[in-house]
């Protein structure tokens, strides 16, 4: 299976089973989504919307549908995957492209808690309360991976910095060691081991707990979830990470396979993960 790579959204994109036209289309899609949803581009639509807090703003079709997905994700996770944490991220020090982050000695400022319920979206009219800023990164990358896979014909996979969607199956390496075959859907990992930086001498990471407005103090280092799509897997992995000890049971309640790597390195698979592998073994 031929594999091609390019950089977008601050990570490496790996695409398999593509011809030149499909590869270019995938690259264009990632570039377009980055142009619309980047927090670090002054001319992005996201920043235009964030600057108009407290006033209704007419947004593009792509933006409104992505915001609708983000609000659905917040609803489905009871607010754990919240799109209104941009200020909290900035307060923690993630206020520039990740490669440019430096510890400038300032202490981290606790950001506001999640306020996704205050956002109004009617058609293509969005209204953010004053003081609320969006960060749609929680859904944009997963959705773009899924949309990229839809551009490809036949068996293929798309992987963006570890978030993966597959058609026709692929064997995937897992955090903490081990592999698994992803037969259908998506696999995503959320963790505090990457995108870490220092602020005022304190370690920070990008997974903000919407209940506190600060980086999560989850007992897990990495959580991998398997969803029907990459977006579903990404949402499930983030929510399970933020839930800490309750994460495995929450994924089981939603029948989503999840694999957890604890801070000390122990690997724990939830019942759905174990069951799905056992069932597959029984069938074969």
């Amino acid at each position, binding site marked *: *299976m031929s594999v091609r790579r390019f950089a977008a959204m601050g990570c490496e994109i790996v695409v398999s089973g593509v011809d030149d036209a499909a590869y270019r289309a995938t690259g264009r899609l990632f570039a377009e989504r980055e142009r619309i949803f980047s927090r670090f581009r002054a001319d992005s639509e996201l920043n235009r919307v964030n600057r108009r807090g407290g006033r209704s703003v007419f947004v593009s079709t792509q933006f409104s549908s992505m915001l609708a997905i983000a609000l659905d994700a917040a609803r489905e996770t009871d607010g754990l995957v919240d799109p209104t944490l941009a200020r909290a991220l900035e307060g923690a020090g993630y206020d520039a492209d990740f490669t440019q982050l430096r510890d400038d000695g300032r202490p981290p400022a606790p950001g506001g808690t999640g306020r996704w319920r205050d956002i109004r979206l009617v058609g293509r009219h969005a209204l953010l309360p004053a003081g609320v800023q969006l960060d749609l990164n929680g859904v944009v990358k997963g959705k773009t991976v899924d949309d990229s896979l839809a551009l490809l014909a036949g068996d293929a996979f798309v992987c963006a910095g570890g*978030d993966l969607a597959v058609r026709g199956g692929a064997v995937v390496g897992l955090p903490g060691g081990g592999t*698994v075959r992803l037969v259908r859907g998506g696999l995503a990992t959320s963790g505090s081991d990457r995108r870490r930086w220092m602020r005022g001498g304190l370690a920070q990471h990008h997974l903000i707990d919407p209940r506190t407005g600060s980086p999560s103090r989850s007992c897990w280092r990495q959580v991998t979830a398997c*969803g029907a799509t990459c977006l579903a897997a990404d949402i499930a992995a983030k929510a399970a990470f933020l839930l800490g000890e309750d994460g495995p049971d929450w994924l089981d309640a939603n029948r989503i396979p999840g694999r957890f790597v604890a801070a000390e390195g122990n690997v724990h698979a939830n019942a759905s993960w174990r069951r799905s592998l056992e069932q597959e073994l029984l069938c074969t």
Partner: protein
Amino acid sequence: MKTLGASQDFLIFVCFTDNLMEAQGVSARERAPLATPGRIDAAWRRARLAKIGLAGLAALGFGAWMGLARATYAGHAKHDVRPLSIPQPLYRVVRRNLLQAGILAPATAPPDASTSSS
């Protein structure tokens, strides 16, 4: 147009009744004195009481009818009105549409890709 007062109406009615009785051959002695002030006042009182009574009965009847209607008529709410919301069973089904699981199997080959924190 000038409207007549209630007492003027009554006097006109009395005159009309006198003329009618004369026309029917009833003598003046046989007739009872109809227009004495005491009887007029008493009649007004009775009329006023009757009006109040009727209004009270109508209000009571309306209230009773409304209460019965609320309690029995199919189109009326039987309890406090609450905002419309999606029924919880449907909500749970819709929720599961986004949070759906993929399919995993044991690996039988070297990895094509790897998942890691992003």
